[in-house]
């Protein structure tokens, strides 16, 4: 199958547990070993208490559509997902927000609303790369 989107590049060492988890259909999030803060994106120090001991937890993969856009064109030659498509900011139940796409939904602003419940769908691109996409919850 042709890859229809840019592959993550570079894949940084501090994000390795995240990418490793996705290959096993697990959405992993960094968690501070000192203060318990679950945060996004992966860093070598906690952005809340600045401790250097970072562990990982598995997200339940549920959250809400915090904000969205509908792409009527591609903004990157390597992004070949058919238009229109939904650009999404998801707020996970564990707290952090991440960017993704909302799929299995009509890309129409009248069909989408901020704070609607969403759940993760794993999309395997290559043997190395699986991406977390989201769809309306309970589909």
């Amino acid at each position, binding site marked *: 199958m042709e890859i229809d989107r840019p592959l993550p590049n570079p894949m*940084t060492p501090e994000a390795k547990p995240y990418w490793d988890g996705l290959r096993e259909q697990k959405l992993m999030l960094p968690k501070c070993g000192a203060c318990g803060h679950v945060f996004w994106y992966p860093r070598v120090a906690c952005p809340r208490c600045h401790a250097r001991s970072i562990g990982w937890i598995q997200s339940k993969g549920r959250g809400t559509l915090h904000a969205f856009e509908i792409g*009527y064109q591609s*903004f990157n030659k390597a*992004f070949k997902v058919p238009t229109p498509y939904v650009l999404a900011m998801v707020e996970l139940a564990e707290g952090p927000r991440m960017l993704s*796409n909302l799929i299995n939904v009509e890309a129409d602003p009248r069909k989408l609303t901020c704070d609607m419940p969403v759940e993760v769908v794993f999309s395997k691109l290559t043997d190395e790369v699986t991406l977390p996409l989201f769809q309306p919850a309970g589909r």
Partner: protein
Amino acid sequence: MANLRDLSNVACIVGVDESDEMGTLPHKSQLSLHVEAVTNAVRDAGLKVSDVDGIFTAGQHSPATIGEALGITARHVDGTTVGGCSFIIMVGHAVAALHHGLCDVAVISHGESGRSQVGVSPRRDTAIPGQFEAPYGFGPAPTMFGLITTRHMHRYGTTLEQWAQVAVSTRKWAALNPKALRREPLTVEDVLKARPVVYPFTVLNICLVTDAGGAVVLTRADRARDTAKKPVYVRGLGEGTEHVSLTQMKDLTFSEATRISGDKAFRMAGVGPTDFQHIMLYDAFTSGPPIMLESLGIAKRGEGVRFFEEGRSTPGGSLPINTNGGGLSYTHTGMYGIFPIIEAARQLRGECGPRQVPNLRTSLVNGMGGMLSAAGTLVLSNEA
């Protein structure tokens, strides 16, 4: 004990100008845009290029490159690059440098081939956007600022028609500015029916993309009395940064960087958020200026757009906003921040002809870097 107010009114903007041409300029290098703007602004001040000993620039060039192109050996340089507001922030850096004698004549220079891309190369760490944004189709600014905008619509009930009013108001000013690129009349309907780019934006909700340069010259207030034009006093200044990646912004509908920069500038100037007769805001998107008004405390949260909807911001209105025609209709190279400073200085000097704001004393300039990530605020006045 350091006191913010010590920096108020110690330096003045004494020269401003754009490059010789603005628009689509495939025949012009970015360095030429810089050099044109600087020589024009220095002439506007009644100074010589050889008087300049402090160089401030952001973006594709280091201040050393600009100094070399101008033939200046600078003794103070600043290349702070935090997005399009960097030039606004640099007015503050220049004031501090002038106050302490680190330089005597400061020039802030911008030159960008945003449309023609002559010599433009991206040079940024891609670890975060390349890993966590690009795979989903995120990239240029409209794919980010739309998230801020739909969240605001959800929280406050703001509508597409209301955002469109910002473009309409700004176009009315552009019609009065011969240097503006888009001057034909514009209606809300035109904005809504224009080509959709990324919801909630049609192409007319998004700024122009042009090639242009701009420069601002500052010197200490004592020396400013001898320059060619009426000096514009920097009465208050402030800067701030909150985030870069939009996932790290605490509240998508409120810019903490803008609030911090405004609070500092207002305190230094001894003014409140409602003490202005003229406002220049960074309008890369129609939803930007209303959110900036809210973050600065000039409008209640969710109500910034009313300044445009009710005609307060338009020619003849009680609080003129973006009187040059803004990034939406005058020019927008990519890093727009130099241009609102130029317009505020011209307004405070009374040089603006049919778009002149009458009886103007105090003007506010506020701009963002990135996606409301960084901000700079200036309180400018034509009297000390």
